[in-house]
């Protein structure tokens, strides 16, 4: 899949999720590098602690190449049912979900094998 297509499908899936909360504002920010990218989504809708906990779990799930390579192709294309964050979680390097002013900010980092997280602000692993 071309990088452009991958990015648009990721944005489609995550914005589908965010829009389910019916926010009045949603901001999408993208920063690309040669070997990776940082995608950030912000909204102003209320989210419970349980929801955020589940989001973090789904988005940072164990990497499943056998599922990502096949079922991951549905990411951002299937808008009929509820959005599925695990489809995204299988494909990204790391995700953070943080509370901001009124809503939340979701940060994704994606990259190839040469991905250098230092070019971005990906948190160091403890």
């Amino acid at each position, binding site marked *: 899949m071309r990088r452009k297509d991958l990015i648009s499908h990721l944005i489609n899936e995550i914005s589908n999720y965010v829009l389910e909360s019916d926010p009045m504002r949603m901001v999408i920010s993208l920063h690309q590098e040669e070997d990776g990218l940082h995608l950030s989504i912000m909204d102003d809708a209320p989210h419970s602690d349980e929801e955020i906990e589940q989001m973090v779990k789904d988005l940072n799930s*164990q990497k*499943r190449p*056998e599922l990502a*390579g*096949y*079922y991951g*192709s549905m990411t951002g294309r299937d808008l009929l*049912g509820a959005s599925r964050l695990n489809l995204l979680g299988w494909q990204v390097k790391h995700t953070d979900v943080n509370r901001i002013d009124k809503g939340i900010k979701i940060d994704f980092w994606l990259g190839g094998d040469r991905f250098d997280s230092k070019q971005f602000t990906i948190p160091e692993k403890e």
Partner: protein
Amino acid sequence: MKEDRLLFIFFPALIAAFIVTALVIEGGAAFTGFLRLQLQPARLINDFFMTAGIAAALMNSAAVGLVGFIIITATKTRLSGPTFAAIFTMMGFGLFGKTPLNILPIIAGVFLASRYALKTFKEYIIIALFGTALGPLVSAIAFELGLPAVFAIPAGIAGGLVAGFFLPALAVSILNLHQGYNLYNMGMTCGFFSLFAAALIKAGGHQLAADSYWYSEPSSFLPFVIPVISALMIIIGLLSGPGKSLRSFVKIQSKDGRLPSDFIDMTSAAGAFINSGMIGIIGSAYILMIGGDFNGPIIGGLLTIMGFAAFGTHLKNSWPVVAGVITAALIFRMPLTSPGVQLAAIFCTTLSPIAGQFGILPGLIAGFLHMLMVSQTGSWQGAMNLYNNGFSGGLTAAFIVAVVQWYRSNRKDNKFK
């Protein structure tokens, strides 16, 4: 992990149990029967219990399951919902269509596709394992077209390689057509491919005979195969921690089941074992109740839905679809014990996610439409795609998804004020 260990012990034990049973039934003759079986046609419906004997069929089922297990292990793929379903499905269809000889070329074809697409084979492993539904295509080219003996098997292998090579491209597109509401996506994919293969074979002046071999001898042993496996799975599930496993089982019933719903990942292996056992017992009870046959296709079908009980099917989302199939059969006066209706009542659970996501009525409608479609699709694809119900289920799911999507997107509450 403890759960991974449970699965890595369970499958070799199941495969070994099939081999031991085959040897107890017929001794060494089971092995010679198994070798003979490799060289015979395998298109639907070819019940190996009838054409090769029960022992040879069990031996073949074990060998096909072993191929799947070795590939999963060799690629270090996690044994979880989809791979659990794949091994059960491969073993099930090892009783009526798949043989090690006819599935390996397809797996090799998918491997070549992964190289071509610059992906690891692991990324396509699910396609490779379920893509073995096209095994009968390999057997048909090798043993049914009347090719000279020296060319027959190489031609069959070449056909399998070509089929396997194109499966990933088709599988991904077709997945998006029904949006994950048909669990046997490779059934629709292989059915789609078979339409072209059957057209090519017919254009070459060959006619594929519509023979059907269905074992219907009464047996005091066969009706107990699935209930015994199911009961053991329930016991294993409960022994893994009664409270946790039962909670997981209950939690599974709340899932919609849409692809990819890995129940082992979402809950626990123990919960999935109980779900699988329950599906096996209720499926067997249904066949017993209607006076159906416990033969290769039925036992294979029950094994398949037990596998998918870890990957999308559960009691709550499957009953409306089965009820839809039974309703259609009764309305159109199709005997519930006819082979096609028995198989449809089992394999229609491919449409469980429709009931899981949209409710009981759409589930009933899906089952009803599926019963009408599945009686036609087998002849369309030359009976070379073993997952004929997956083909029909995919068409039904695509139809329902399109209608629901159109209805929802044109509701008044979707418009701006």
